[in-house]
């Protein structure tokens, strides 16, 4: 599975606190993505990266920021968590622009109280 590791796998936090989720991959894939999964909404793209320091917004980017300082790591930050950001977050990778398949990590479940 492209060696994708997400951390933490589970986190409970309080409204207003900052949260960072980490995605680490060992396959040297160029593209990395952050999705959130919510009932009735499926998987929605938050942000993605097409290279080191190259990122772009997805459908639901408000309240989230990302950083990619190394090929293998893609960080998702919630600057001030809200209850609406309670969700399961999935990281995914793909090897290049000609590769049309995403490979997903196991997910990070975030609860904001």
């Amino acid at each position, binding site marked *: 599975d492209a060696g994708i590791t997400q951390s933490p796998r589970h986190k409970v936090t309080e409204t207003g606190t900052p949260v960072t989720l980490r995605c680490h991959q060992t396959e040297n894939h160029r593209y990395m993505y952050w999705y959130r999964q919510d009932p009735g909404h499926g998987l929605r793209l938050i942000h993605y990266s097409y290279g080191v320091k190259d990122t772009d917004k997805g459908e639901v980017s408000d309240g989230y920021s990302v950083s990619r300082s190394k090929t293998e790591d893609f960080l998702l930050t919630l600057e001030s968590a809200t209850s609406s950001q309670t969700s399961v977050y999935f990281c995914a990778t793909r090897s290049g622009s000609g590769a049309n398949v*995403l490979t997903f990590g*196991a997910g990070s479940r975030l609860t904001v109280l």
Partner: protein
Amino acid sequence: DQQVKQNSPSLSVQEGRISILNCDYTNSMFDYFLWYKKYPAEGPTFLISISSIKDKNEDGRFTVFLNKSAKHLSLHIVPSQPGDSAVYFCAAHTGNQFYFGTGTSLTVIP
């Protein structure tokens, strides 16, 4: 404005019968379509895909059909097995982005 829609939240099928999962899309720029399978507490796993220039792709028990004029995609599973019970997501690709449907929960009854 969901660009990829799965209008059936759930589907139940007897073991051995055919399961048909449906997906509709609105964006004519989608050039590649995929189906993913997801078990609880795991990430989605890739199942099968189809390019927009084709109308059918088959892989073992799984076949995906694409009707571009209707903007409709379907996944056929024959024969269905209890281990196929999972949530199935269809997805569509354009540019650097992949858009997903809301999922269909398939239950295969032994």
